[in-house]
């Protein structure tokens, strides 16, 4: 967890940095990243009845009233309404403007001044300092002009700059909150309340106080706050946030429910199965919060640029004033300097990366993909090489009968006899054989006097004959005959990396079953889709070469390294890094933690392990392998958005700065354009939230409960008759 003062803004969930703005709202202390978020939060929470502190809105409203009056009179002044006969009213109007401007500057400029001051005493200059210096200069000059009855007054400039910056920050904050919409359900785990039913009474409690065994009522439309089991009620739930599963899941008495899923239609009474802070949802929440409050590489660079820019801009503005003071009246020179200060305010630069990243994280989260490091998306976007682990990533991770070779009998007969024997065994191969028989609807032949020979095979008697299943040597030991053609086929199956089980009865071997871990049905399409995205695909596995080659051929990977220890896998990654600079590694997060940590982007698929111990930067949901190309797309869009944001922000700043320094840009227009620039960055980033869902054209794995007989769209039926 990050330090408490490195938290997230209550409004837009962006990192608040080291100097948050703390405000009491509804009796709770809230931290905001900026003044705009503070206003927007108050406007938003104004919907609730108990909300009582409207002071910021009142300030903005009164500030608006004053500055609009000032602007009104100033427009009339500029357009020559007070010339000729009305000229005698001029000093009075100027005095009136001063009287109106003083409270306006205090009210609107206060937050900027406070921010500047609290940074200044820590020896830092922020962009607020630019506004304070600029507005302060315009105000002081105008006040002097009123007192001395000399020159023009620029109270309108001072107040309108403040007003535009305030409105700009507000609009920016509103946009940022829209960006955070996808993150809200993930971050709600910590602040969520649950309705605890204790006998006849119900009371609201924080999720943190929930423990195992408590009964919790979840009304329709509410989020289920804890993991547990349904005691009463029937409903549909939406578990997308946790599992990425977009289909609704039906729940009735006895069904397990997951914290973070939404109860859609009926009330559910559930019994909590553990503490509210130990749910996967709470873990996800902590992990996302952590990722959001840290800063990626681009962000750190932007921060440094912003920090360096402020003193530079101050100096530049001073030089501009000095330069123009020789050529223009002093008030005009001052105005040019003010325009430089206002227009060079690097707000948009600071916003470019974190906003796009947090929207990208939110977009992925909506489909159950978790990003644990802010830099991971940028790194994934840059990578040209993806390495895969095999077992559990490209394969199902469980043994299946993939081939049956027979000699003189039906495959089904051999399988039924083998299944009759193997149902007495706990071995992984035995389970595969039993499942295969069940999948074909075969009834295992009743077998008695079963004896297991450890490491070799299993022996029994059925229908008055001795039946055996096991290794080749086991059959030799029994002295059973084996047809040379069947033996040859068995050897070729072994050479392809399969485990083979010989099945025989009555002194002769009749069949050879090949058992293997089979590839994911969606693996080939996913790999093809990645290759379409100009990614170099590699298989790095600890398994033997024959198996690796066969799997790689099946799913279309050419670059294979087998027999690798974890260290050798790391070396393999290093070699690829030399060519491709940034490499990503995809694993199941169980036995490849080291390698995932070593890669520039570690991606874990469907990991059931504790999130806190995981080393992957990106975690895809269970059965979410097919989403990988989409995740790459989102990452690339995020990076593109960050770059366009930065290009816009820098390009705009440089052009506008030049115009301002040349005296072409009015300060008020500069402030409007400046606010517009930040809003454009927000709008550009918001496009990310509208990215399409992962493409359904990629084949999805059928749900486990409906997959009695798996037929792969790529490999055909799992078991081919011999």
């Amino acid at each position, binding site marked *: 967890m990050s330090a408490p003062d490195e938290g997230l803004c209550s409004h837009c969930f962006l990192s608040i940095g080291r100097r948050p703005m703390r405000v009491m709202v509804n009796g709770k202390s809230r931290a905001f990243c900026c003044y705009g978020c503070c206003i927007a939060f108050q406007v938003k929470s104004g919907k609730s009845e108990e909300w009582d502190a409207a002071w910021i809105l009142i300030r903005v*409203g009164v500030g608006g*009233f004053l500055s*609009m009056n000032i602007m009104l009179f100033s427009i*009339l002044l500029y*357009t020559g309404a007070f010339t000729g006969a009305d000229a005698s009213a001029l000093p009075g109007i100027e005095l009136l403007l001063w009287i109106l401007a003083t409270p306006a500057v205090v009210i609107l400029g206060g937050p900027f001044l406070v921010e500047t001051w609290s940074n200044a005493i820590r020896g830092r200059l922020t962009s607020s300092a630019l506004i304070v210096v600029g507005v302060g200069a315009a105000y002081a000059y105008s006040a002097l002009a009123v007192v001395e009855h000399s020159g023009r007054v620029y109270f309108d400039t001072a107040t309108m700059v403040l007003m535009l910056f305030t409105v700009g920050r507000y609009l920016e904050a509103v946009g940022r909150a829209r960006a955070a919409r996808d993150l809200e359900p993930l971050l709600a785990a910590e602040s969520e309340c649950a309705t605890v039913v204790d006998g006849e009474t119900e009371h609201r409690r924080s999720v943190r106080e929930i423990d195992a065994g408590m009964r919790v009522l979840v009304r329709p439309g509410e989020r289920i706050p804890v993991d547990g089991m349904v005691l009463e009620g029937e409903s549909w739930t939406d578990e997308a946030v946790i599992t990425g599963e977009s289909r609704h899941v039906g729940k009735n008495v006895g069904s397990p429910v997951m914290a973070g899923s939404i109860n859609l239609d009926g009330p559910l009474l559930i019994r909590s199965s553990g503490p509210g802070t130990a749910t996967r949802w709470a873990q996800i929440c902590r992990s996302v919060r952590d990722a959001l409050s840290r800063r990626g590489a681009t962000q750190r660079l932007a921060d440094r640029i912003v920090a360096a820019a402020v003193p530079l801009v101050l100096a530049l503005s001073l030089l501009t004033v000095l330069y123009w003071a020789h050529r223009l009246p002093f008030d005009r020179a001052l105005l040019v300097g003010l325009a430089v200060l206002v227009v060079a305010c690097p707000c948009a630069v600071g916003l470019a990366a974190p906003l796009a990243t947090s929207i990208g994280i939110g977009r992925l989260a909506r489909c159950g993909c978790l990003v644990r490091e802010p830099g991971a998306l940028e790194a994934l976007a840059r990578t040209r090489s993806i390495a895969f682990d095999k077992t559990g990533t490209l394969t199902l991770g469980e043994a299946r009968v993939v081939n049956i070779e027979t000699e003189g009998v039906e495959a089904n007969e051999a399988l039924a006899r083998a299944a009759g024997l193997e149902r007495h065994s706990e071995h992984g191969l035995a389970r595969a054989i039993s499942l295969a028989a069940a999948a074909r609807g075969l009834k295992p032949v009743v077998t008695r006097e079963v004896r297991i020979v450890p490491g070799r095979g299993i022996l029994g008697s059925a229908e008055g004959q001795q039946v055996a299943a096991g290794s080749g040597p086991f059959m030799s030991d029994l002295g059973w005959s084996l047809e040379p053609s069947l033996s040859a086929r068995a050897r070729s199956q072994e050479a392809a990396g399969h485990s083979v089980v010989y099945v025989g009865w009555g002194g002769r071997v009749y069949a050879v079953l090949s058992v293997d871990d089979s590839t994911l049905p969606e693996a080939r399409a996913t790999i093809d889709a990645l290759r379409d995205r100009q990614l170099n695909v590699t298989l790095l596995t600890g398994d033997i070469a024959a198996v690796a080659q066969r799997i790689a051929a099946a799913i279309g990977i050419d670059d294979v390294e087998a027999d690798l220890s974890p260290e050798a896998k790391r070396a393999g990654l290093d070699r690829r890094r030399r060519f491709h600079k940034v490499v990503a590694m995809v694993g199941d997060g169980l036995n490849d933690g080291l390698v995932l940590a070593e890669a520039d982007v570690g991606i874990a698929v469907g990991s059931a392990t504790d999130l806190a111990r995981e080393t992957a930067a990106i975690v895809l949901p269970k059965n979410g392998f097919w989403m990988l190309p989409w995740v790459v797309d989102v990452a690339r869009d995020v990076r593109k958005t960050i770059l366009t944001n930065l290009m816009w922000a820098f390009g705009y700043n440089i052009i506008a700065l030049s115009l301002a320094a040349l005296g072409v840009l009015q300060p008020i227009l500069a402030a409007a354009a400046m606010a517009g620039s930040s809003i454009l960055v927000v709008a550009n980033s918001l496009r990310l939230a509208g990215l399409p869902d992962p493409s359904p054209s990629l084949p999805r794995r059928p749900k486990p409960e409906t997959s009695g007989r798996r037929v792969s769209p790529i490999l055909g039926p799992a078991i081919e008759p011999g």
Partner: protein
Amino acid sequence: MAYYLILFAAGFAGSFHCVGMCGGFACALGRDGRGRSATLLRHLLYNTGRLTTYCFLGALAGAFGQVICTPQGSRVPLLGDSFDVAQRTVAIVAGLLMICMALQFFGHLRVFHRLSVGFAASTLAVALRSLLVAQGVAAPLAFGVFNGFLPCPLVYAFAAEAASSFRPLAGVLTMAAFGLGTFPAMLMMGGIGRILTPVWRQRGVTFAGGYILLLGLITLGRGIAPMTGHAAHAWAGGHFG
């Protein structure tokens, strides 16, 4: 002056429309516990806030009209024509806008209504409700300021009229006349509550629609026919011409 009196009357008539939405705010602003004068102050401040926003919009609209219609490059003879063209374009756009608003008042063009009321009711108004119940002198003023920015076909229509005056001062006065026209009804709503029957409100709205339609036609005429335009301008804005 007669021109502004017409605008004031249009504002007054149109305020029966305001009663529908903004009147709700005025009612919600309610009475001050400290007595009648405090209540009156509260409502005056609210309406002052609203009026300020209207005047500001009027000044901006007028300045906008002036900026695009001021012949800046008069050294080039051709621009004399384009100045005229710009002025006419603004007048035509403003006139058409006002006619649309008027038609909407008569019950046609519902889409405008849905757009404005839907947006206002859902976002800003709901969000700002907290300001209505907040105590203190400044809250009603602040609410009035925000209220003035709520999308409203009446405000759009008069802002268009302000833009076609091509002068900030005329723009301010246009909006001020309109805003002051809405004062009586709005103050009444605050003080007396809903005393107006829907029938009377509908009559007021139709009346306002007629006024705005007339103004729109005159403005449009200024853009289209040169002779009528001059005549209308002389009639409508003669005192500052």
